[in-house]
């Protein structure tokens, strides 16, 4: 029998989830929740970095395992969890490169260069945004996905869904506000004072987590 929960880990915000992992190390449901929130970011990033599906899975496993092991090093005053995890991921890749110098087909320097690539930062951020998108209601998610993934105008979305274009517009507005709330919860600032991506990842020297 499962322990009854009135509130599940999905209702914890990121920082509280990290604290809960530290305090309840045996509760793998908390790790599952961490995975659900960040697996798109971690996997997309690693996949683009290595361009190798098998290595990607090994690395994703290693990154989450290390995040769990070092959960207590997360300091909410230094930045969002996604930025801290980015530091963990970069260090995992660096360690992995050192260990697998021989097997890695690509020159080490090339991979190391890629790991700091700005495009790869966008992939990481995109994964976090994709996870936030999943927390929206199906109606809200649908209008944003049609606009962003299928590049449809509001009128085209209305035709596709068979609803008035006015409804699509007001729904889009509400969906964006929800999205903004979800992303604020994930640690993004609105309006951003600098570029949204670099602001998120560089805040609090996230990548220096294990290098220091």
């Amino acid at each position, binding site marked *: 029998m499962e322990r009854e929960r009135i*509130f599940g880990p999905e209702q*914890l*915000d990121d920082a509280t989830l990290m604290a809960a992992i*530290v305090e309840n190390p045996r509760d793998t449901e908390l790790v599952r929740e961490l995975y*659900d929130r960040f697996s798109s970011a971690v996997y997309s990033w690693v996949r683009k970095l290595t361009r190798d599906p098998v290595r990607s899975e090994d690395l994703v496993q290693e990154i989450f395992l290390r995040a769990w092991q070092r959960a207590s090093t997360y300091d909410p005053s230094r930045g969002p969890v996604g930025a801290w995890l980015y530091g963990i991921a970069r260090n995992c890749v660096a360690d992995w490169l050192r260990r697998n110098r021989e097997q890695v087909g690509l020159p080490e320097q090339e991979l190391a260069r890629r790991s700091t690539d700005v495009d790869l930062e966008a992939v990481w951020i995109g994964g976090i945004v994709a996870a936030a998108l999943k927390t929206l209601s199906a109606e809200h998610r649908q209008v944003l996905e049609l606009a962003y993934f299928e590049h449809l105008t509001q009128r085209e979305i209305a035709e596709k869904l068979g609803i008035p274009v006015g409804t699509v517009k007001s729904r889009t507005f509400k969906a964006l506000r929800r999205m903004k709330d979800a992303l604020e919860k994930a640690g993004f600032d609105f309006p*951003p004072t600098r570029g949204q991506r670099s602001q998120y990842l560089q805040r609090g020297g996230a990548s220096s987590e294990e290098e220091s």
Partner: protein
Amino acid sequence: MPEGERDHKQLHDWLGAYAIGGLEPEESRAVRRHLETCEACRFELQQLEGLHELLEASALAEEPPPHLEERVIRAVASALERGQTPSPAHDSTAGTSPLQARRRWNPAVVSSAAAAAVIMLLLAIAVQRQLLQGERVPGQSRSEVASLPGAEAPTASFRLVASGPPQETPVASRSPDAAAVATGASPALPRGSGGSYVGLPGGELVPRKAPAGWQCEITVWGLQAGQLYEVWFRTSRGVISGGSFRPASPGMLTLNVYTGVPFTEVSEILITAEPDDGDPMPAGPVVLRTSLRNEPGVPAR
């Protein structure tokens, strides 16, 4: 409705579509004209700034294969089997002492986190008091709690009493009023020679309203060092964990437990000694309990 107002209502609804470039050209022009004169809409649009860039990035994301999640969970489970935990004590590379790491999770930090509909959560072992220093200073840790935005002055504290087997009728069942102990009064602490507490385990609990839900400061003593304990909230819908802790010494320990379960729904707070088997169900005997209501709670299990 005046024309300007009607325009505003309609164009305000269009702002989202405008922000993501989804409007027809003539509609975009209408929004731009409106923005020149409408400060409210300019502000609203500014709030959405930065969102477009992020949503565009989401198209770069790739979903991991479904089996990867189980693989990650298995890796964590087997690390647990090997005796690893995220505890800083096992992580020599973390570079922080256990106390430092825990202190990061002070109430002020968690309060911002709690702004959402936070739930139960997190058991922050805020301060482990050193018994050899003599009497507990009642106001000390509370000042941290009192600084929490939205926190109200404490109204009552509850005595946690040693309990028999879990099925047994609670030793004490008092209404909040009847159980109230003057705020700031030190509990009568049994003290032995050499500064260590002797006798039955005991504790004190001070509930406070927090921005989301409520929190309680629990001070316990006389528990076994190294034993895993868990805090439970009993409600009409079942028992909910408030988190676990492991005293480093049998001395006095203060915990801050935050919960999103409304205070009025909690009938009893229990502390159980749990076996180290990873089973998330309450399994061990109840060692301390306090009743917050006159009416009995539902069975714990």
